[in-house]
């Protein structure tokens, strides 16, 4: 088995997902340490450029987390990111970056446990994919 430790960049919205991650921490859940968290005010702030830059700088995976649809603090930021992702995934594929390296999840402030599961699962999948070329 390889001992590849993937580097994963996580963009978490301030109002739900970051609090969900916080809850995972305060609940003392143990989960994969591979995620580097970047807090943004809203998932709608996440532009394709952020994702491209993360991959360019050596990320093996990028996780975007926002409030559940309908729950965005700014009402529709998460719908914006939802629209951006399908063409962005297709474009990453054209650049030779597997689309599975980008994942979007909705995580509420109450879902600490779910957040930990997502990070574990994503880390495992990226480990299977191996380092980015």
């Amino acid at each position: 088995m390889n001992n590849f430790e993937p580097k994963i960049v996580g963009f978490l919205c301030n109002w739900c997902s970051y609090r969900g991650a916080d809850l995972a921490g305060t609940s003392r859940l143990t989960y994969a340490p591979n995620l580097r968290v970047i807090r943004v005010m809203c998932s709608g702030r996440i532009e394709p450029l952020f994702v491209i830059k993360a991959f360019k700088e050596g990320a093996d995976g990028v996780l975007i987390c926002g409030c559940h649809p309908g729950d965005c603090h700014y009402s529709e930021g998460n719908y914006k990111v939802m629209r951006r992702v399908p063409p962005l995934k297709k474009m990453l594929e054209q650049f030779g970056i597997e689309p599975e390296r980008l994942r979007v999840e909705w995580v509420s402030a109450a879902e600490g446990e779910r957040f930990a599961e997502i990070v574990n699962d994503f880390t495992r999948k990226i480990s299977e994919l191996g380092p980015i070329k």
Partner: protein
Amino acid sequence: MAKLKFAFYWAATCGGCEEAVVDINEKILDVVNLADIVFWPVALDFKYSHIKAMEDKSIDVCFFNGAIRNEENEQMACLLRQKTRVMVAFGACACFGGIPGLANFTNAEAIFKRVYQETPSTHNPEAVVPQEDFETEEGRLNLPRFYDTVKRLRDVIEVEYFLPGCPPPAELILAAVTAIAENKLPPVGATIAGAKTLCDECDREKDKKVVTEFKRPYEIIPDTRKCLLEQGIICAGPATRAGCGQRCINANMGCRGCFGPPEGVIDQGAALLSALSSICEIKDESELKKIKPLILDPAGLVYRFSLPDSLLKSKRSVISG
């Protein structure tokens, strides 16, 4: 005042930029009054030796069009740099890699295979491909190395000014020549065009922020007063530098992005993808067909002129060289 010395050169180019120089029509005479053209391979017979014999920095301005595709392009760029005071990247290919830059989604090997073996019109049973080095009865032949990736001019030499466009419009060429003649050039590194986005200059009516689908240009006849993007026609205006005089918009066509990114935008394609995908309303995967023109080939669409200028520059598996 002594006459200025101009040089025009073409590297990996379609020739359109040379055409653009000729398209300034009778104004070319003003240019000739102002400057001696000391090097212009497309129009006048020059050899490498002529330029090598020139004194360093003896050319005042070199207008260099085309991208850097092979070793010869790079060598000529270096040689002209040595002989020139002010280097101008002329046209989208020299500035951003341009259309030839789209080849960065593949590499030299794949291109040779396609061109010399796979195209339907090719008959090449012995798989003959050009060699860099070849022995013949008459002597040894050398061809310049064909690179894996296309580069911008600024990737191989220092460039003082950028004149974007595919090709640059006559008015901008004249504006640049006038600025040179009157010694009123902007600070080194400047792009001789607008600073903001094409949308900023475009006077079409804009109102709604969301569109429900993207259409191919042949599917509708767009209203000439309304924003094309809002009518579902893909337009690169939100992520393209102003200054072309809205050539395509005036022809009722969406902008393709040939002026490159506006001031301060580091990646034109990422900015355009963001703009296009944020305004088109789709609720889930089943509605992706509504944005088909965007989803079919997003990278080719948003980086049509600027792939070598982007953050990623080329497909990941293509090693730069």
